[in-house]
């Protein structure tokens, strides 16, 4: 139902988020359902002649450094990778080191730390964006206060650069149209043009960053071919060895 609503409201690209919060040991990263199974035929975007683009995204909630494993193969099926750091140290690590596309800002509770310019500038240089989600603000009045406070703190440090606004919607009615989100960005301390960019060109930049992350330096892209897989299984016996020369 949510996916039917998004194109009607005016979005041309949506990402389905899978949240992974590793609490127990050996907890497995969820694998995303293929888009074709989830939605049969992609609906057309309102006012356009092209269908909506649907991507898969993984958000790893980090409460310890070991929760995010860089270059893990379980992350490969996802188009976008996001982390949600919960402490200052993890936020610093996420900004400077983690190979991710999006850093989620806590909106459901008071921020346990202050944003410092250094890690924020570091992540801006790397092309990593900060995400503020608004659905929790729609559900609860206290969360609305936390969302606005945390977002305004972020904007003071990052000056409105590299920010995206997203819904984190679980129901169709928690989704809002793109121009409404641009107006919401004004409440968060963004200027009108920054707010427009947060919904348009910065999101495009994130998608390109995600594609480049899967390649070598953004130039070379490798893909396992079917033939190699078959040959590997055939050669699983002892490798060929030289026969010793008989003298």
């Amino acid at each position: 139902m949510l996916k039917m609503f998004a194109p009607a409201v005016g979005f041309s690209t949506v990402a389905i988020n899978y949240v992974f919060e590793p609490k127990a040991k050996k907890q497995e990263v969820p694998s995303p359902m293929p888009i074709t199974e989830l939605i049969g035929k992609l609906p057309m975007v309102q006012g356009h002649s092209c269908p909506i683009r649907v991507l898969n995204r993984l958000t790893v909630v980090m409460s310890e450094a070991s929760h995010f494993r860089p270059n893990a193969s379980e992350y490969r099926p996802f188009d976008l990778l996001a982390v949600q750091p919960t402490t200052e140290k993890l936020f610093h690590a996420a900004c400077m080191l983690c190979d991710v596309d999006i850093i989620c800002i806590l909106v459901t509770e008071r921020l346990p730390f202050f944003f410092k310019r250094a890690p924020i500038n570091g992540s801006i240089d790397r092309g990593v964006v900060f995400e503020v989600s608004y659905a929790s603000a729609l559900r609860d009045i206290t969360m609305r206060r936390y969302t606005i406070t945390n977002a305004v703190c972020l904007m003071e440090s990052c000056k409105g650069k590299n920010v995206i606004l997203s819904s984190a919607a679980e129901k169709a009615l928690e989704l809002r149209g793109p121009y409404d989100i641009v107006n919401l960005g004004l409440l968060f301390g963004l200027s009108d043009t920054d707010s427009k960019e947060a919904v348009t060109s910065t999101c495009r930049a994130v998608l390109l960053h995600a594609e480049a992350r899967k390649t070598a330096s953004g130039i070379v892209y490798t893909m396992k071919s079917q033939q190699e897989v078959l040959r590997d299984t055939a050669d699983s016996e002892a490798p060929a060895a030289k026969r010793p020369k008989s003298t």
Partner: protein
Amino acid sequence: MCADLSRTPRNLLVCERSSFLDEKNRLSFQVEQLRFNYKVSLLLPECGSAPSHLESTLNSFSRFYLVKKLPIYELLDKDFLQNAVYQGSVYGLSFGTRIDEDNCVALMPNGRLVLSLDKDSYEMLGFEGRPSRFNHRTCSRFVVPVDLKERSMAPGSPGYRRLLRALSSHLKLQTDFLISHHPGGGAALKALLSRYDWSERRPEVCSRRLSDLVCPDLRSCDPHSLLEWLGAADADVSCQNSSSSFLSTLTCPEPTTTLAAALSASVSGLLLPQDVQRLVEQLRCHLQQEQTASWASVTVHGFADGPVSWGDEEHGVLTGGENFYNLLMFHDHTYRLHLATGPQDGCPP
């Protein structure tokens, strides 16, 4: 520090008071400059139904054509240029494309073709253009203006061949297209239309009668309140501001009078400035003939998603793409003209 909510996106309102009898009045020039008109709304006081001459004027707005999936390189076709572009005025606009998201195309009556492209499309096209005036931090929008009547773009010249190659092989730009020709009508466009899926459209006319319309003093009212009241009347929004209703807190500016009846009519489609000019002339005649009519209001809206608004000025959409003008005419040949644009527009003429 909290967000600065007192600042709103910029909008521009140019106000002019003049008279039709004044030789220096620039009304015809200003009407002609807004080339792509989407909707014309009329408000006539003390009028139950449209007088016959006005009704015939509204119904005689030029027809236009909607071509589905027109490849844009077809606009460079030699026969099309010879028969349509060089011989008269072609008005063409891409349909179903958003100026802040997609690639938009406009073909103007002076022979200028304007392409407003996103970054990827511009880089694929490989033809010279410039970044949009309204880019913020990143250059995400580019404008490619081409003068088809210039010698360097004559069919067969290197510039022409380069653009044709760019549009037919580098970037196969294809959009639904609204097109109209003045004065030839469909005849000049026949060759182009016959190759694609096209349909002829008539501008849609609708009218309704308003009763007990509260009206401000139109001569002395300030422009913003006047335009707000006109918008409320056109959109059928109540200006009562009753305590039990929270839908609208709009009020009619004081001092007010009440009109027993008024006519609100509108025409929408791809409307040509020449037809708007004719309508203005008819309304002037109507004001002279009818004793009861002391004023008439015409509001002309431009397309929100067009690449150009007034003249050759670039147009963009931030959260709204308004570009319109309102002409308030009085019985004594004087008028008030208000020209309005939004944040991503140049100044109206």
